[in-house]
C-alpha cells in the first residue's frame, strides 16, 4: 500500500505541474478538438450512406488516436526528469522504485480523462450521437483509458532509454502517427493498397477503434477479409493487445529504471 501512496504523491506532482503550467493542458486539449473539427468538416463527405454521418465513425477513431499520442507526452516527461537529475533524487529516497513511473502513468491517465471528456463534448456539438446507452458509452471510455494506460508503459520505456527529451517526443510521434493512420480510424481500409490492408488489419489501433465503435453502437468490419479474428472480436482482441503491450513494456521499464544509475 505504501508503494501505491508513493505513486500517488508523484501523480499529485503532475497535477500540480498542470496547475502551474496550464498551457500543457490547454494545448493537449486544443489539438484533439481541432482534429475533431477538421476531420468532421474536411472528410465529412466520406460518410455518405453512414447512418448519422461520418462523425459517428470519426469520433472513436479520434479518441483512440488521442490516447495513443499521449505516449509521447509520457516519454517526454520522464526523459525530462532523467535529464534534470530528478530521477537520482527519487532513487535515493526510501520509496518503492516503481513509484515514479507508476505515478506518472496514473497522472497521464488522469490527463486522458480530461481530454476525452472535452473531446466528447466537442464531438457532441458537431453531431456525434452514440446510440448504445450510458452503460456501453461508459465502457467505451473506460476501455480508451485502459488502452492509453497500457500504451503509456511504452512511453515510459521510450523515456527511460532516451538521451534527450526533445528528441524522444519527436521519435515517439514518428511511431504513433503512422500507427494511427495505417488503420480504420479515419477511412475504410478497403481503399488501401493490399499490403497496407494487412497492416491495418493487425494494427492494434484498428482493433481498438472497431471495439470502441462497437461499444458506441456502430458495427464496423475492417481488414482484408472482414472475418479475421480482430475484425470479428475487436473487444477481446483489443484487451489481448493491451496485455501484450504491458507484458512487454512493464518488465522492460522496471529493468531499465533499476539500472538508470548506470548511465554516465
Amino acid at each position, binding site marked *: 500500500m505504501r508503494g501505491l501512496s508513493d505513486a500517488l504523491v508523484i501523480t499529485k506532482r503532475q497535477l500540480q505541474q498542470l496547475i502551474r503550467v496550464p498551457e500543457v493542458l490547454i494545448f493537449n486539449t486544443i489539438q484533439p478538438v481541432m482534429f475533431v473539427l477538421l476531420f468532421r468538416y474536411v472528410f465529412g463527405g466520406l460518410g455518405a450512406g453512414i447512418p448519422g454521418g461520418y462523425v459517428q465513425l470519426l469520433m472513436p477513431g479520434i479518441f483512440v488516436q488521442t490516447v495513443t499520442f499521449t505516449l509521447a507526452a509520457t516519454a517526454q516527461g520522464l526523459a525530462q526528469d532523467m535529464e*534534470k537529475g*530528478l530521477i537520482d*533524487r527519487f532513487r535515493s529516497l526510501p520509496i518503492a522504485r516503481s*513509484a515514479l513511473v507508476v505515478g506518472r502513468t496514473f497522472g497521464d491517465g488522469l490527463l486522458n480523462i480530461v481530454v476525452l471528456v472535452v473531446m466528447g463534448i466537442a464531438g457532441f456539438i458537431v453531431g456525434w450521437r452514440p446510440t448504445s446507452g450510458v452503460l456501453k458509452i461508459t465502457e467505451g471510455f473506460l476501455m480508451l483509458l485502459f488502452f492509453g494506460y497500457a500504451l503509456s508503459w511504452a512511453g515510459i520505456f521510450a523515456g527511460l532509454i532516451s538521451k534527450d527529451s526533445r528528441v524522444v517526443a519527436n521519435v515517439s510521434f514518428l511511431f504513433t502517427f503512422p500507427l494511427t493512420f495505417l488503420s480504420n480510424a479515419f477511412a475504410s481500409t478497403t481503399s488501401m493498397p493490399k499490403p497496407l490492408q494487412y497492416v491495418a488489419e493487425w494494427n492494434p489501433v484498428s482493433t481498438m477503434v472497431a471495439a470502441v465503435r462497437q461499444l458506441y453502437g456502430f458495427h464496423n468490419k475492417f481488414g482484408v477479409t472482414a472475418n479475421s479474428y480482430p475484425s470479428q472480436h475487436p473487444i477481446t482482441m483489443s484487451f489481448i493487445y493491451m496485455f501484450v503491450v504491458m507484458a512487454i513494456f512493464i518488465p522492460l521499464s522496471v529493468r531499465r529504471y533499476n539500472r538508470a544509475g548506470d548511465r554516465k
Partner: protein
Amino acid sequence: MKSIIAENLVKTYRNGEVKALDGLNLDVEEGTVLGILGPNGSGKTTTVRVLATLLKPDSGHATVGGIDVLKNPKAVREIIGLSGQYAAVDETLTGWDNLVMFGRLYHLSSADAKARAHELLQQFSLIDSAKRPIKTYSGGMRRRLDLAASLIIRPKVLFLDEPTTGLDPRGRMEMWSVIENLVKEGVTLLLTTQYLEEADQLADDIAVIDRGKVIARGTSDELKSQVGGERLEIIVAENDIKSAQEIIDRVTGSKSFIDMGLRKISAPVKDGSQSLIEVVRQFDTAKIHALDLAMKRPSLDDVFMSLTGHAAEEVSTEGVSKKKGGSK
C-alpha cells in the same frame, strides 16, 4: 565510529575500457566532514553514487551508518541525504510544493511534511520565495532548495556532490555558510569538490582522488606540508630583477626561481617573516622598488600539482572568483 567505509570499490564502463573507480578506499569518522578533491572525471561523482545506493560497483564493499550499501540499500536510503551537481527538484513546482512532496515521499504525514517544509524554507532564507516556481530562482537559491530537500528527514549522513559548481561567488559564499551551519549540528558530511579552497574551507579531512583512486589523505595542513614550507614571492621592475635576485638569494640562503613573464622571484624560506623584513631593508638600501611582495604558504593547487603532476583545474589563485563549467 566510522560513519562511511568504502573498501576497494571498482566500477568500470564500456566493458572495462573506462575505469571510473579503480580500487577506491575511504572512511569518514562520524560527525566529521571529508572533502573529496579531484578534477573532472576523477571518480568523485561515481563514489558518491555508489555510496548513495544509486550505482552498483563491479566489486568492493561499502557501509554507510554501519549498513551495507549493497545488501541493504533501502535501509541506507532512510538515513542519507543526497544533493547532486544539478539541482534535482521539480522546476515547474514551487519551492514549497517540492519540499512538501519530498516530505510525503519520506512518509511524513501531510501536517509534518508541511511543518518541515516551512522550517527548512526559513532556515535557508527561502521563505519569501516559497510560493514561486523554482525556475524563477537564482542558481544559488536552487542549490539551497535542493540541499533543503535532502535534509527533510535530518539525515545522519549527507552527500554533497559539487555543491557549488557553477555558482557565482556570492552564491558560493551563501552555500558555504549554510553547509558550515549544518556541520555544526553534527551531520557526517561527504563533500566532493574540484575547488581546492572549498575543501580547505569546509572539510576536516581531505582525500585527493585521481583516476578512481585516493592518492593522498590528510588535513589541509598535512597535505600542504607534504609540498613544502613557505615561499617568499616578490615582483620587481624588469631592470631590477638581477640585483633583487642577488639580495634574495643572499638573505634566504637558497636558490630562487624567476618567472620572467610575471617578473616574479620566488624562494623557499625557513625563518618566515624575518627574511621578508631583511629583504625589504636591503631593497631599500639598494633603491629597489618592490611592486608586490608576499609570504605564500603552498595552496592546495600546489598540493594537487605535486601529487598528480597535472593541475586540478584552470589555475587562478584568486579563489572564489574562479568558475568552472556552465551554470546549470
